[in-house]
């Protein structure tokens, strides 16, 4: 229904290549457009000693150490030693995996927020699966530096939720001083597709007397788009097998076909329980996976269903009431999803919230406990690191402190589930990228030279 005619491309691209995220090749090629040029900062072996460690996998260890070398976690345990390592005495401190925010609009809705920088929603058609959020990212958004100070080591930048299909999302490192978005792209991380249920698309397009204007219009939009994508994928496959000509290159179809074949990880903004259940049935109809529902304000009502389907839920601790689809928000949403054996994630969707996701997890932890659930603080940290890594398809790379994983590590001044805790040091790929109080708060180009920084009154 919303086909785009595309320029024919001389090279015939295989379906897999179209949909595959940029891989370890630093050189862009027709198979890996916009490849990541991320390079970890230089690091040296580091041994963090005698901390309380929350490993991101539900484990807590007192008086324990973390050894990092060549950008990877080497060991976690007590009494570690390494002759070649610089030693950080973390007595009295807490150590955790870095926080991963699965839902951010940094860079695409940056600071300053003015019409020209508001690039997060290509709200010109309900299906803009062809756009990629990374192409709207402004690396100079001061929000990236603030996020690092809050313990963020990876974040997923998504298009907004004006559209049924918002476009591809991207997982980034918060690289301070990055000049290009390619320098920030998390190596080998799959791209996502952002979809949106509910009030936003039907309000945006209904308000223009256009489709969709209702929930049923939304669903027809999803289903027709996936049906078209199935046909596209069949033609592509047939052409590969020598049967017929390939279809014209179609960026929108490439994205949708990527969801069908699993290369692209589906992140679906959806608030209401009944709408999530319909979304699950759409996924069954077209045989694709939903990685996570985002916001999922009513996830607690179908926590069993989400656990059974192995669909993560990326949620707020307590936002509610701003739309009727958010009316039934409760403070126990995250812990109830957790208690059902589900994949609970704390996300921000906010340039302010991303700076203190640990506090949001703390709220959810406390409310769950007050409701009588047994949840450890180590369990709560899974909502901030392992579970978002899982939803973003990077669980093998990061999100837990275990040997072999990327050394994305934060040293906190105190129990990070306290309002008073601050991130003292942040390591990404084993390199120290932030240390509080060292006078090297990173300021983006936008902030450089501003009067208040130059001693101006």
């Amino acid at each position, binding site marked *: 229904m919303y086909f785009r005619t595309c320029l024919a491309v001389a090279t015939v691209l295989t379906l897999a290549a179209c949909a595959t995220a940029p891989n370890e090749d630093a050189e862009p090629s027709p198979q890996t457009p916009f490849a990541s040029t991320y390079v970890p900062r230089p690091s040296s072996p580091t041994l963090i000693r005698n901390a309380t460690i929350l490993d991101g996998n539900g484990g807590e260890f007192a008086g324990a150490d973390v050894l990092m070398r060549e950008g990877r976690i080497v060991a976690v345990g007590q009494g570690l030693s390494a002759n070649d390592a610089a030693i950080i005495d973390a007595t009295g401190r807490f150590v955790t995996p870095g926080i991963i925010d699965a839902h951010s609009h940094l860079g695409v809705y940056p*600071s*300053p927020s003015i019409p020209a920088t508001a690039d997060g929603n290509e709200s010109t058609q309900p299906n803009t699966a062809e756009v990629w959020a990374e192409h709207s990212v402004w690396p100079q958004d001061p929000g990236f530096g603030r996020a690092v100070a809050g313990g963020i080591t990876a974040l997923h930048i998504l298009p907004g939720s004006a559209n049924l299909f918002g476009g591809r999302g991207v997982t980034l490192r918060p690289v301070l001083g990055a000049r290009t978005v390619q320098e920030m792209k998390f190596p080998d991380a799959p791209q996502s597709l952002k979809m949106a249920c509910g009030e936003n698309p039907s309000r945006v397009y209904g308000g223009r007397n256009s489709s969709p204007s209702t929930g049923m219009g939304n669903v027809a939009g999803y289903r027709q788009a996936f049906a078209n994508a199935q046909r596209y994928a069949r033609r592509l496959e047939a052409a590969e097998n020598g049967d017929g000509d390939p279809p014209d290159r179609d960026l929108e179809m490439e994205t949708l076909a990527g969801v069908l074949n699993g290369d692209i990880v589906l992140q679906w903004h959806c608030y209401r329980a009944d709408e999530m259940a319909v979304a699950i049935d759409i996924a069954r109809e077209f045989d694709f996976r939903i990685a996570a529902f985002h916001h999922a304000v009513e996830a607690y009502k179908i926590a069993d269903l989400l656990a059974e389907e192995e669909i993560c839920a990326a949620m707020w601790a307590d936002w509610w*009431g701003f*739309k009727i689809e958010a009316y039934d928000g409760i403070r126990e949403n995250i812990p109830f999803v957790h208690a059902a054996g589900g994949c609970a994630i704390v996300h921000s969707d906010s340039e302010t919230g991303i*700076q203190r996701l640990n506090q949001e997890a703390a709220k959810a932890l406390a409310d769950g406990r007050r409701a009588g659930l047994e949840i450890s603080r180590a369990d709560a940290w899974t909502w901030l690191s392992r579970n978002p890594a899982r939803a973003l398809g990077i669980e093998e790379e990061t999100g837990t402190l275990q040997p072999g994983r990327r050394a994305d590590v934060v040293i906190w001044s105190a129990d990070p589930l306290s*309002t008073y805790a601050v991130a003292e040091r942040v390591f990404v790929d084993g390199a120290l990228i932030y240390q509080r109080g060292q006078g090297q708060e990173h300021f983006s180009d936008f902030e450089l030279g501003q009067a208040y920084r130059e001693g101006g009154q």
Partner: protein
Amino acid sequence: MRFFAPFLIALAIAAPATAETVLIRDGRVVTNGAAGIIENGDVLIVDGRISAVGANIAAPRAARVIDAQGRYVTPGAFAAMSEVGLSEISGSGAPNDASVEGQLIAAAADAGRAFDPHVSAVAVTRLEGVTRAAIAPSSTATMFGGRGALVALNGAPDSVFGERAFMVVELGETGAERTGGSRAAVWPAFEAALRDAREYPSRYRSGQGGAVLNEIDAAALQPFARGDGLFLVHVESAADIRRLIAFKRANPRLRFVIHGGAEAWRVAPELARSGIPVILDPLSNLPDRFERLSARLDNAALLHAAGVQFAIAPGPGSVDAHQARLVLQLAGNAVANGLPWDVAFAAVSRAPAEIFGVGGRVGRLERNYAADVVIWDGDPLEVQSAPTAVFIAGVEQPLVSRQTRLRDRYHPNR
């Protein structure tokens, strides 16, 4: 600082028919007054007011005794800026009384007469220890945002206790947006509006009309233009704050409080000398608007060090109808960024009351103050803490809301 407050205050909060005598025993009592924090202190509530605070208070006959077991006992928190009660659902096309469109009513907007004590957000907010709020419209068509009110969150019919308590005025970027798109138009328009208000009703009766304001807005603005009311000014940038300070110096009868003030830290000494208080958002640290380029997390700590009177609340643009309860988290974050604990707690309890001219009646645990008392299960400024009991005007509030009902219905162990 005492403000003369001619606006209607229901100072005598009527003692409910079922007013209890309650003795809260053995708490860490945060008085917000000269007595400071009393370890192992008692609080006696009689007829809706604090009757006594101290150690080893004898329980009157028929008093209900609550053992606080050493836990925090504090005044209720006061959300210094909120839209609570002005909508049930703020979006989705549902009625939202915080947003006033059209040219007929702007300065005359009266939040106190739109307040609905029965919205679900009231119960949601009070069970987290916030017992009072200053509410105002979020937007009007002009630089005048309308008149705000002071409300209690006990859901009672008489819970508006400060009607027409302040006049919102936009003198920063938002003011410029509503006034021809330029700050160059804002101050001339503001001064002309004040003249219209001072000259009401004569210039309207004569048929001359107002230069800026229609008759309704001029009538509403008049007491404020004469110094008999408080202007709540939205400014953020250092330059705009300085302009306000200069304007106040030239118009000493007028009274101002700043809401926003992200760059107040840059003009802290001048602000302290001016006596203009600031309601600030301690989470504001991004240049999300050009008027907030230098926003920083230690704004509150810097203002405190300079002797500026301030309160803590969400900033303009972040105020909503549903999350007033998070004001305690804001205060906790100010502590994490250098503000002393007692100052931070006062910034969300005593200071808002003082700024809005009711500091002699709410915001402290001292004799004769309204008995807004909260017993906590931990440090009130820690996000993991929650109240175990909430009293508003001496009446214990049920810790039940629509959200707790939903929680119970969907509880995994139901």
